[in-house]
């Protein structure tokens, strides 16, 4: 029986879809069977980020309306074994789906997959309740901005009310340089406010933009810091114990100091 994990944030644009695509792919690369579900009905994106948009025939809406079987609506990612996408309908809107219907889909997917990752839309309304309806666990994605953190805090409260546990935090678009010069909140500040378990820090990585545009999740090219961060989070999701990578020590000043100490 697989786990259903909702990937959510409250605020838009913090990296929910990028994180879902990368974590789904990373888990599949680790040998797990994974279904990624786009719950952003009407504003779907996950298919583009995963580069599968041209292969979608049926969506979750068709499954709900009994136009096709769930297994037929799943799009197989040919680059890795065991990775499937269930796309959202672009024609409908979030009110056309009931939370119970989403839960039924998740419950069915978990019988055939180790992990079901549900990409939640931004907001706290119907789209969020649909996305979290079938979830056992949650991953909250935030950037170190006060606005994203306040929205994450709100979402954590709602997830706790819905008894979804554990709630793990992904700190995305983290910039050691900006933390170093005092213009960005550091890891400790964010955790102090949100007070949930940190499952990973993803550094700011311009490679994300190119990877999104090309439809190739970052983790396929394992060299970049972002890809490595997502691989580490995926390993933690499978139960491996890996210490949280500390990007903060690698500030510019520290690099210069390290360089000097190495010379002598």
């Amino acid at each position: 029986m697989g786990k259903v994990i909702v990937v959510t944030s409250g605020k838009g644009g913090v990296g929910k879809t990028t994180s879902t695509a990368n974590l789904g792919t990373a888990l599949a690369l680790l040998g797990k069977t994974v279904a990624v579900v786009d719950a952003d009905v009407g504003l779907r994106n996950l298919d583009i980020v995963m580069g599968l948009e041209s292969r979608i025939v049926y969506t979750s809406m068709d499954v709900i309306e009994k136009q096709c079987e769930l297994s037929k609506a799943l799009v197989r990612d040919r680059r890795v074994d065991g990775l499937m996408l269930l796309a959202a309908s672009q024609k409908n809107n979030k009110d056309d789906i009931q939370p119970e219907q989403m839960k039924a889909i998740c419950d069915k997917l978990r019988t055939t997959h180790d992990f079901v990752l549900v990409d939640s839309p931004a907001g706290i309304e119907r789209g969020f309740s649909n996305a979290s309806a079938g979830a056992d666990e949650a991953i909250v994605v935030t950037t170190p901005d006060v606005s994203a953190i306040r929205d994450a805090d709100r979402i954590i409260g709602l997830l706790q009310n819905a008894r979804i546990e554990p709630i793990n935090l992904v700190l995305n678009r983290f910039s050691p340089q900006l933390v170093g010069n005092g213009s960005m909140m550091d890891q400790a500040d964010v955790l102090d406010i949100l007070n949930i378990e940190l499952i990973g820090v993803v550094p700011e990585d311009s490679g994300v933009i190119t990877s999104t545009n090309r439809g190739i999740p970052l983790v396929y090219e394992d060299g970049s810091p972002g890809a490595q961060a997502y691989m580490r989070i995926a390993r933690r999701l499978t139960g491996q114990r890996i210490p949280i990578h500390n990007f903060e020590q690698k500030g510019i000043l520290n690099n210069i100091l390290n360089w000097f100490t190495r010379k002598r």
Partner: protein
Amino acid sequence: MANSTVALRAYGDGLHLIIRPHLSISEVEAAIEQEITRMNRSLAGASVQIDLKSPTLKEEEIELLSSKLQQTYDLTVRGVEVADEPVLPPIAAAPTTHVISPTTDTRTSRDSEPSRIVAHTIRSGQTEEFPQGSLIIYGDVNSGSEVKAGGDIVVLGTLRGSAYAGMNGRLSAVIIAMDFAPLKLQIGNYVNRSSVSQEPRGYPEIARIGAEDVIIVEKFVKF
């Protein structure tokens, strides 16, 4: 805690008797008696300046009060000042305090009130309300959340949201937090909106209505 209606304070130029607005002469007299008993030492021979926070007492009432102070406590009134704005700066930086509408303190002491313990962090969008008494929070009160209590509010964590103590009108209610960075404070009908968001100072602080009729926030040493 100091009597909330009148306060005797020693400043550079001697003793000041600070009298808050919206009080009748009998209330003032009773409060003075309480304040002087509380000080528990003789003030005989001292001179005092009366600072009236608003011109609610009539002139003959002030005269009556002066002679009474002289007779009962041997206190000489050296002057009367009627202020429409606070004469002295608050102890800690306190931005503008707005009085919504005058009420009188109707509640009994905090000792007789019930209290409720909330053993988790109050997150953005959540409200914790306890009109019957005081709230004690084992966690943070995060930005975008609200805590309201009939009595005091004690936050054993960081206060970043808004806090409303004394919601039934008890003006002696206080707000205590281990770290103080609130968006908005309200005690009774006194509202204090921080013009700039305050950085936590790393020590506990207490907010209460001071004799100067503004919400003051100061280092919390002991109650």
